[in-house]
């Protein structure tokens, strides 16, 4: 069977963005730990965490306009039933795979920006993701966070992508963000793990390189103790959960980083959508819930804003394979203790679609970026996004 899932790595291959990874610094845990102790991020510095959902997440089955009769009639084979909904207004409900985000919404910590896309949306994964990541409709090759990096004094810790290749959003014209690997947090386990630190001791018979090898063993274990018991366990949680767990660990350790990126693939639900999307949303929800719990207990509790977005939403009408094809606008979620929760923008009507049967666009994503640039990165919008001035603030 052909594996038709659209994923991030393939996007990077296609766009050639993977090559930038060679120019980027892969940060070691040692260097992060020492940056956190030598130059900790000052308290009250805002931090942005981008969560990219690759593949095109179906917004209508994420934030569901469940009372609209068209919702049921247009997608009867994938419409969520009342037991699969967590209503939070008279007409909108979260997918029931999202209990943590629903609870955070109840605490006014979730801003839902509705109907987000851009004029004449592209239905191509590649073009649309490139537009979102560059914040340009005309094929600018640098990323929006990358251009923000260009305006900052050079520092390898300003922006960090979690994983082994950088998202194009993090590549500027002069600067490139750094990377850290989530699985870099996995410590040796099992019975032998207690023996290994002994191999890191120095020995009088060591030649210089053996002494260096011993030091690397000690480094691993001392970094682990510096970053403390927050280190995520390798066997628990989804990949996104591990990524966000690492990010919260490093934020709580005061690593001097302003922007983080984590991601999850496989949202391209052309077939069997309900099963797949519910599992993926549950992963997002569990990861966000754990992240907010971790951040909420630290000194950073009011500093962090998470943005969850995808390259597009999906068609209003479902297809015959119990899935949906590529669509246009969808909600963007902004989450944080400092976020003014609630609804922003307008829910596009389900009975006034474009020629392809897709939702109208009611909010331009660049306005969302504008708000984040202004409120979190303290940078004028037009410095980063050419000929754009609008900022939608959720803070």
């Amino acid at each position: 069977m052909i594996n038709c899932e659209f994923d991030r790595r393939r996007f990077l291959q296609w766009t050639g963005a993977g090559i930038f990874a060679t120019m980027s610094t892969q940060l070691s845990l040692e260097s992060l730990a020492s940056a956190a102790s030598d130059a900790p991020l000052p308290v009250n510095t805002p931090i942005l965490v981008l969560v990219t959902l690759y593949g095109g997440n179906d917004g209508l089955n994420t934030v569901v306009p469940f009372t609209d009769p068209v919702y049921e009639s247009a997608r009867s084979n994938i419409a969520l039933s009342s037991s699969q909904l967590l209503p939070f207004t008279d007409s909108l409900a979260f997918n029931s795979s999202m209990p943590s985000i629903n609870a955070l919404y109840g605490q006014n910590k979730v801003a839902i920006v509705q109907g987000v896309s851009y004029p004449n949306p592209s239905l191509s994964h590649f073009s649309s993701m490139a537009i979102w990541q560059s914040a340009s409709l005309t094929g600018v090759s640098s990323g929006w966070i990358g251009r923000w990096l260009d305006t900052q004094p050079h520092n390898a810790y300003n922006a960090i992508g979690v994983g082994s290749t950088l998202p194009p959003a993090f590549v500027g014209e002069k600067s490139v963000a750094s990377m850290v690997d989530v699985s870099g947090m996995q410590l040796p386990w099992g019975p032998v793990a207690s023996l290994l630190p002994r191999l890191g001791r120095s020995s009088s018979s060591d030649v210089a390189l053996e002494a260096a090898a011993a030091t690397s063993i000690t480094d691993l274990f001392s970094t682990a103790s510096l970053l403390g018991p927050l280190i995520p366990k390798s066997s628990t949680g989804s990949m996104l959960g591990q990524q966000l767990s690492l990010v919260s660990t490093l934020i709580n350790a005061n690593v001097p980083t302003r922007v983080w990126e984590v991601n999850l693939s496989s949202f391209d639900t052309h077939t069997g959508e309900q099963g797949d999307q519910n599992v993926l949303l549950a992963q997002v929800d569990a990861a966000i819930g754990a992240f907010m719990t971790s951040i909420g207990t630290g000194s950073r509790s009011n500093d962090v804003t998470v943005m969850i977005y995808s390259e597009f939403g999906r068609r209003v009408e479902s297809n015959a394979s119990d899935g949906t094809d590529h669509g246009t606008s969808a909600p963007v979620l902004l989450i944080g203790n400092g976020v003014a929760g609630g609804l922003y923008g307008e829910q596009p009507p389900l009975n006034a679609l474009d020629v392809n049967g897709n939702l109208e666009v009611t909010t331009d994503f660049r306005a969302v970026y504008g708000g984040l640039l202004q409120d979190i990165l303290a940078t004028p919008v037009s410095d980063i996004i050419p000929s754009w001035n609008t900022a939608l603030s959720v803070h």
Partner: protein
Amino acid sequence: MRRTPSFEQRLATARLLHRFNFGPTPGQYTDLLERGIETTQSTVLEHGHFDSGLDSVAPLVLADLGPFPQGNTSAAMTFWNTIEMDSRELVMWWLDRMVVSRYPLTERMTWFWHGHWATSISGVSYPLTMQKQNNTLRTHALANFRDMAKAMVVDGALNVWLNNNENYIQSPNENLAREFMELMTLGVNKFTQHDVTAAARALTGYSTDQSNGNVTLNLKQHFSTPLVILGTKSQLNAESFASLVVSKDENARFIMDRLWFRFVSGSTAAPASLAGSFASRDISSLISALVHSTAWTNPANALVKSPVEWFVGACRALKVRPSTLNANDTQWELSQMGQLPFNPPNVGGWTYGQAWLSGVAYQYRFELAQSMVATGDLAPLSVSKSKMVQACADWLGVAEWSRRTASTLAAAVATPSEVALAALLSPEYMVSA
């Protein structure tokens, strides 16, 4: 009458086995210690025989997948999936060969040349094209460097990697011309920009079919006027350009230094006398001269094993075929340690020395060691507990454990698998001291 081998003999024997043969097979180290250093030298140099080990690795036949697909179609996805699967198989196929070979010098030299000609699939995309280069490197691994250079200058993967497909008379691309001289044959500052400009012209007219590595010369697009390169004026094509460059004395010195650096020492210089053994550019005589050098008992000549060398050595000791391990995990761990075959980080090749020794890399080393030991043959540790620590050194080809490592291993003798794991993860095994 048996004599106890001296420390020097243990050191030299271990170094020769680890550096030229990817490490000893079970029992081989003690056997060669008994038979003496000369036998060890001739043993590690053996090559060219029928190799029953290699014969047991099924040939890998990759299809020509044709041009890149357009758009986001299901055919395109099948294409990228095939690329991915073929790449994975190609890596495991080569790792298997390194592990099971009975005369590993050829694979070891092919591995060296892969780092020397440093071509990455990240730029070439097609596993078939990479495999063809790999076979070319193997063919010439111990033969004549001039023939290797002539074959490589028209190698499809190298031509794609260094943009020779974009090298035209009207709009030259100097990448292949420059790197061929700087990184592959002469060394930095051994030529001028004028030589580069002229060399790029000599390399025009060659076009590579990226999906299969076939290179064709279109004479109409080839610069046919005589060129002055390195002080010699002649009409040149790619092969005669390579031949001209290799004829320079600087080439002998450069290749000798590269081999010395990777096989013998990162801290001492190659003796000039070695160059004599490379006068005809015969690689096997240069390697033989290295193996017979007096460097092997000098304590200064320690080297860090690269991740692949460490991994292949451990697999040989444990009798584990890499392809029987989880291919995804194995390749992930190697890439996280910084060394996945066919993926050198850039045209400069792999890093060296202390750069391989980071705390982060140690975690992946641990994971790889776990998976190898879990399925490995631990028979060499089936000895009494009091003899196990020494038996472990003899098995793995470690000249001597430090007191630190000896006491750590001694604490684990109740469980031989833990002894094996800790030994593979010890400074003495990570480094060819």
